[in-house]
């Protein structure tokens, strides 16, 4: 495979020479986003920042270092590895580079290059909303993220998030359930199983929207990767919604980046007593738009909500085909079980039924997949 071959496949429509030069930078471990920002800032006093100048600046920095940029053979290996993982490279200013990110070039954190794995090598062009939050959500938080993902996807809005366990994955899953588009920005390179064991979701997202990473293939997770990643999440979306997060949460960082990039920031208000709602509440105090009903987000992105249902749109209302097979007790109980877990004893009091009936109904709903067990009791799945 000649350079022109793999460069053409990796980044169709771009100059093979440029592709090779950029990939050479991308493959060098020391050319990380902060260094890239430095190279951009060095050019800011010029009338316009040219991609060529930034690349040249980085190459010059590489020549001055003891560990220079990779050789051509190594660059070729990286290119072949990317192709093996089904990934393509998008360079700013070239075809395939996401429009919204291009708006953030050069000084608002958009990267010079991007690896992406998406249907037809392009991220969805429709309106996009980032749904972000803690890795340790409460059940209610996860439910909200799923419901948001579902609602957005149903209205043709792309759901962007970071593939982390918790709120991120809940949002992806909501979008997947509704059969919509969702994009994940990874904190690792392609070909790394992270979060470990979640390959199914990753593959599903790759098919339903796309996976994005700016790290070379095989690059493992490091704390700073996730900080760097945040500017891509906010940059790929028109609106960033923070569902839950604790003090000094990564979601807070994403929201601040979004604000800096001139994007809308929304936050899901929670209880002041709930540590998991600290970040969204702080954001609201600082001027973020509170999400008082799920459909608020549709107003902001300018999509008309077909059936304005407010929060009722939240937890899944199981289809009739499913409930038809349930016993009467189980159907009754389904109306009592909410997003906040309750012990069978409490449910029995609320339903004024014997606890044995409740236990049997909980088990029935659980085995039917309508209710799931948390350590604190059953909640709606």
């Amino acid at each position, binding site marked *: 495979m000649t350079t022109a071959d793999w460069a053409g496949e990796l980044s169709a429509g771009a100059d093979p020479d440029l592709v090779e030069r950029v990939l050479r930078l991308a493959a060098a471990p020391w050319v990380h986003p902060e260094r890239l920002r430095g190279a951009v800032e060095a050019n800011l006093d010029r009338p316009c920042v040219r991609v060529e100048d930034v690349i040249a600046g980085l190459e010059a920095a590489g020549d001055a270092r003891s560990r220079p940029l990779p050789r051509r053979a190594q660059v070729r290996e990286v290119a072949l590895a990317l192709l093996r993982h089904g990934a393509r490279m998008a360079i700013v200013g070239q075809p395939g580079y996401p429009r919204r990110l291009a708006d953030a070039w050069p000084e608002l954190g958009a990267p010079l290059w991007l690896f992406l794995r998406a249907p037809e090598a392009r991220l969805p062009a429709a309106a996009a909303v980032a749904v972000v939050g803690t890795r340790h959500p409460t059940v209610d938080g996860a439910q909200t993220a799923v419901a948001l993902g579902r609602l957005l996807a149903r209205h043709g809005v792309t759901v962007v998030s970071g593939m982390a366990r918790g709120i991120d994955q809940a949002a992806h899953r909501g979008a997947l359930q509704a059969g919509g588009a969702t994009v994940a920005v990874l904190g690792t390179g392609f070909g790394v199983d992270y979060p470990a064991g979640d390959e199914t979701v990753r593959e599903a997202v790759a098919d339903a929207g796309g996976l994005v990473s700016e790290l070379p293939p095989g690059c493992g997770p490091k704390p700073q990767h996730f900080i760097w990643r945040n500017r891509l999440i906010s940059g790929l979306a028109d609106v960033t919604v923070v569902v839950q997060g604790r003090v000094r949460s990564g979601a807070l960082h994403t929201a601040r980046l979004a604000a800096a990039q001139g994007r809308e920031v929304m936050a899901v208000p929670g209880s002041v007593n709930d540590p998991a709602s600290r970040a969204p509440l702080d954001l609201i105090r600082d001027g973020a738009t509170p999400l008082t009903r799920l459909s608020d987000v549709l107003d902001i992105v300018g999509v008309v909500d077909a059936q304005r249902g407010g929060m009722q749109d939240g937890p899944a209302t199981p289809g009739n085909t499913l409930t038809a097979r349930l016993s009467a007790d189980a159907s009754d109980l389904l109306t009592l079980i909410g997003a906040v877990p309750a012990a069978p004893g409490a449910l029995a009091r609320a339903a004024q039924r014997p606890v044995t009936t409740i236990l049997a109904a909980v088990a029935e709903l659980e085995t039917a997949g309508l209710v799931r067990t948390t*350590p604190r009791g059953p909640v709606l799945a």
Partner: protein
Amino acid sequence: MAVVGLQAVAVTVEAHVAGGLPGFSVIGSWGLAAGQAADRVRTALATVGVAMPGRKVLISLAPADLPKAGARFDLAMAAAILLELGVVEQAALDGVALLGELALDGEVRPVPGVLPSAAALSATGVHRLAVADANAAEAALAGGPEVVPVRHLAELLAVLRKEQAPRPAPAGDNDVAAATVPAAGPDLADVRGQAEARRALEVAAAGGHHLLLLGPPGCGKSMLARRLPGILPPLTDDQALEVAGVRSVAGLLGDPVRLERRPPLCSPHHTMSAAALFGGGTGVARPGQLSLAHHGVLFLDELFEWPRGVIEALRQPLEDGVICVARSRATVTYPARVQLVCAANPCPCGGGDRCSCSDDAVWAYRSRLSGPLADRLDLAPAVEPLSAGDLLSAQAGESSAAVAARVASARAVARDRWGQAVTCNAVAPARLVRQSVRPAALRTLANAVEAGALTGRGYDRALRVARTCADLEGSQMVGTDHVLEAYAHRLGLRQQPTAAASAVGPAVAVAQW
């Protein structure tokens, strides 16, 4: 009688008194107390006028390879010497067993382990058993040989020489009816609310299932556990004897006027050593808390604070109903058929309303319960923190007597079905249990196994619990509702969200991709 574990073996004591170098030696696998026994016996004999100056005394304990310990053979040694010296006749000692320690003034003192010894004697052709006054009631409980209480060596001598009629032993009160009057103990009526936990406790009592109570501190987990013996059926004659036997060997029986019919409850603390829990000690192991809870309830509070190794070691005795403890002089098997009741906080912070632990943190905490142990537990109800309303409500819970009546009738149904060999549903063979389950109910549970929500072992255990639920209701066959209830009782034993549950979304949606 030597006692190794609960196994009592008759020991024949022979004495030989002859001229020669003066001395007193004991042969036959004799422990450290040998020299001390010699001095006690010699001095005590002197008080009844039998002095042995300048004679060589040789005592032999047979069988010689059996480990023997303690002062229990003092009385028998004295009698053997009296026989050898011709003070009493051979006929007077035929078929007579003696158990007791001698004081220097000739008084007879009680020894531990009299009950299992007396019980074992019935089979050996011994018709009379001489024991200290304080042991007489205990020995009589066994219903074995005629018990002859002796207060002093002189009294023994008088009885053996027929100069005095033996005093009657205190009558053992073996009447079951007397024991079914509500024994003084905590009552379930004190427990307000807790519908789920009460139900689980009832099912556990009716089927002999193991229980894990999950709840924040102060919500009443120990309170519930301590009320379990009160709703369990009273011990049968054999069970009561076994329980008293273990206590006797442990030296804890005291002076019983009647056999205790209430199942025992042991609640060891989690700092307890493995030896104290499983049995141990030098030479020959003594029974631990596990065996003291035989036929009763072993309550492990703060389950997650127990050392992992100790909890894992519980698995084997829970399966086998016995615990085998090896020590230098003997390997002893003690009975350990216990009903396990564990209690634990539901999450790392203790739980309750102010809990802010994330689900992940709680799952991580729950995984301290090892899978294999979780597979051996059956019910894990949530014990809820009491609401102010519950505390103020004047309405007391159902009383222990009412619950015990239902438990008793469920147990009776089970006994009729299984016969004598199977004491409760928890130990019923899985094959037999399945025969009385409706096919639809079996399928429901099999689906759960297929979905990864239940292990194979959990499947059989859930079926047994379902069998108990059906028995409580008086149903011949186990229906879907019973199986579902049993399944729900196991939900608290989960250590991680199952494959289906971990996807935030209904299983149907997950199946799409």
